[in-house]
């Protein structure tokens, strides 16, 4: 493992970094070196993360929070230290961090807090103090945007279907920015929740969080930020963002699969009824009824993903050693290079912002006369891993008039040489398919 000095953008030692990721030296298809540019879907894992997980299993594995024996003590300590480490990565406190299966589950945990509070209230069941904030009435509104990942759209549609609340959304402009002009119409006194993405996984757009938060705060709505595409790529501080809850996944930030995170203000968590119930989240249980532990335990029923938490903490360590500002700067440079390169290729149209202001590294495009999936297949044949499809943001595609896109999304271990390979391949697409 190689860790370079924090935030020393000049010292970005790409080959040392790449050596930490064994998969990057494999070949694909016809002995082509792998050019992995599908990082917005999931990232690769450095040896340090794999070692941390394995060390946990080989030395301290036990069920946490339940044991009098030494392994259980060690496992609990490592799990809770991981929680603290990961919370601090986004500027939060340990008891404000809940582990979930992935970001999708974290968003569902929030949407189900509303459902459960609403249903329990109607049934006269017990609720935590402050839970009224989560009780919805018909006509209450929930606001998202037109550039959400399905994970931050479908759960709210479902919640509306079940409670009679109404889903509204902030539209987007033709170049893939939030249509702030329409925001005042959408966020109103009826708005109970504003849940939006920090950075679009399809367009790369980084949203103006402060403006949206200000509008939401004016009407007292709960503010949720989907940080799946920001936490892995830039410094994120929950206090500076002034939001109520933040959700993201471990697997996109060098961490293991099978772990996601929900950070939320303590007072919000305190007021939420449980979601998944069972062992380790209770206070007292009789056959007749149960009472529940305080957060974060209230939201972590059953044996948790301990090894994955330990691995994700190691990923935070790795990222912090590089420095998140340096990571962002490196990606910014790559994004400029990629945008410029694509713009020079005839028949290529970028879907999303073409200027590199408030923009992340996920770059979607379409090629005239060639379907995005065929583009991706052609790239794949050159060893380039790109993503194709609607990227779980189908309504965004519809809004921008494309059925799908091809997406390149470089990360910290990619360099310009990767983009040169990709651009070269994109140049070959139209000739191959006879479209030019």
């Amino acid at each position, binding site marked *: 493992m190689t860790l370079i000095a924090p935030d020393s953008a000049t010292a970005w030692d790409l080959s040392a970094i790449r050596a930490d990721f064994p998969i990057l030296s494999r070949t694909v298809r*016809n002995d082509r070196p792998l050019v992995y540019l599908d990082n917005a879907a999931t990232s690769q894992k450095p040896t340090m993360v794999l070692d941390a997980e394995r060390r946990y299993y080989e030395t301290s594995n036990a069920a946490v929070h339940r044991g009098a024996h030494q392994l259980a003590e060690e496992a609990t300590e490592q799990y809770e230290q991981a929680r603290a480490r990961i919370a601090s990565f986004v500027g939060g406190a340990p008891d404000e961090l809940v582990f979930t299966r992935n970001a999708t589950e974290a968003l569902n945990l929030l949407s189900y807090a509303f459902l459960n509070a609403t249903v329990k209230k109607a049934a006269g069941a017990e609720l935590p103090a402050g839970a009224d904030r989560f009780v919805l009435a018909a006509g209450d509104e929930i606001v998202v945007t037109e550039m959400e990942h399905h994970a931050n759209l479908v759960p709210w549609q479902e919640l509306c279907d079940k409670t009679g609340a109404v889903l509204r959304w902030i539209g987007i402009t033709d170049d893939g920015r939030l249509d702030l002009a329409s925001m005042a119409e959408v966020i109103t006194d009826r708005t109970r929740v504003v849940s939006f993405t920090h950075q679009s996984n399809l367009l790369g757009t980084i949203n103006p969080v402060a403006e949206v938060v200000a509008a939401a705060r004016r009407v007292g709505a709960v503010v949720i930020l989907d940080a799946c595409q920001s936490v892995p790529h830039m410094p994120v501080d929950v206090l500076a963002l002034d939001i109520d809850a933040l959700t993201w996944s471990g697997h996109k930030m060098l961490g293991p699969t099978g772990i996601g995170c929900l950070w939320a203000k303590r007072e919000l968590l305190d007021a939420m009824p449980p979601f998944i119930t069972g062992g380790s989240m209770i206070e007292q249980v009789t056959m007749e009824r149960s009472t529940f532990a305080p957060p974060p335990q209230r939201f972590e029923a059953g044996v948790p993903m301990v090894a994955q938490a330990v691995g994700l903490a190691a990923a935070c360590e790795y990222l912090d050693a590089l420095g998140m500002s340096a990571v962002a700067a490196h990606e910014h440079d790559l994004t400029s290079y990629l945008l410029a390169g694509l713009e020079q290729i005839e028949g290529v149209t970028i879907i999303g912002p073409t200027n590199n202001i408030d923009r992340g590294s996920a770059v979607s495009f379409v090629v005239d006369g060639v379907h*995005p*999936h065929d583009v991706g*297949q052609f790239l794949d044949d050159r060893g380039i891993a790109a993503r*194709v*499809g609607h990227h779980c943001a189908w309504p965004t595609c519809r809004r921008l008039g494309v059925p*799908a896109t091809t997406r390149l999304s470089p990360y910290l271990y990619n360099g310009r040489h990767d983009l040169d390979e990709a651009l070269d391949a994109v140049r070959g697409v139209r000739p*191959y*398919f006879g479209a030019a």
Partner: protein
Amino acid sequence: MDLNSLYQQIILDHYKNPVGKGLREPFDVSVHHVNPTCGDELDVRVHLVENDGVTTVDDISYDGQGCSISQASASVMYELLQGQELTEALAIEGAFHEMISSRGTIEPDEEVLGDAVAFAGVSKYPARVKCALLAWMAFKDAVVQTQSASSLFSSHDAPNGEEATT
């Protein structure tokens, strides 16, 4: 594995110049199928005619958008099944499905499949299997619906859904 084994010339030709494309009348059943991973959509209409107890595929018309594989596959399907006896058409569909799902283990029978053997290469690209089958699954679904007035499946339901997730 070579990209040209996937994109055989015949596929690219059909993609650029699809045969029988466009929705026509008359038809018995029209279905709308979607590939949920990519968002591509296809309408397929089937018109069957019965004569002396023998059912014939009088017309298959289709329209939609999608990748080269899915578009070419619809076009080749039209060529192969149009005018065939229904039992024969379903046999061809079966052979095509089998070939595509075989991961390259089945030697396709050119007698039965004609131009469709060009799709043999698709079977080695699991992510494209759905593309090649989209039109054929729609056809089969439509036929099932014509066969049972009280159809068990709505076009929105099982068969498409099934396929959507393999």
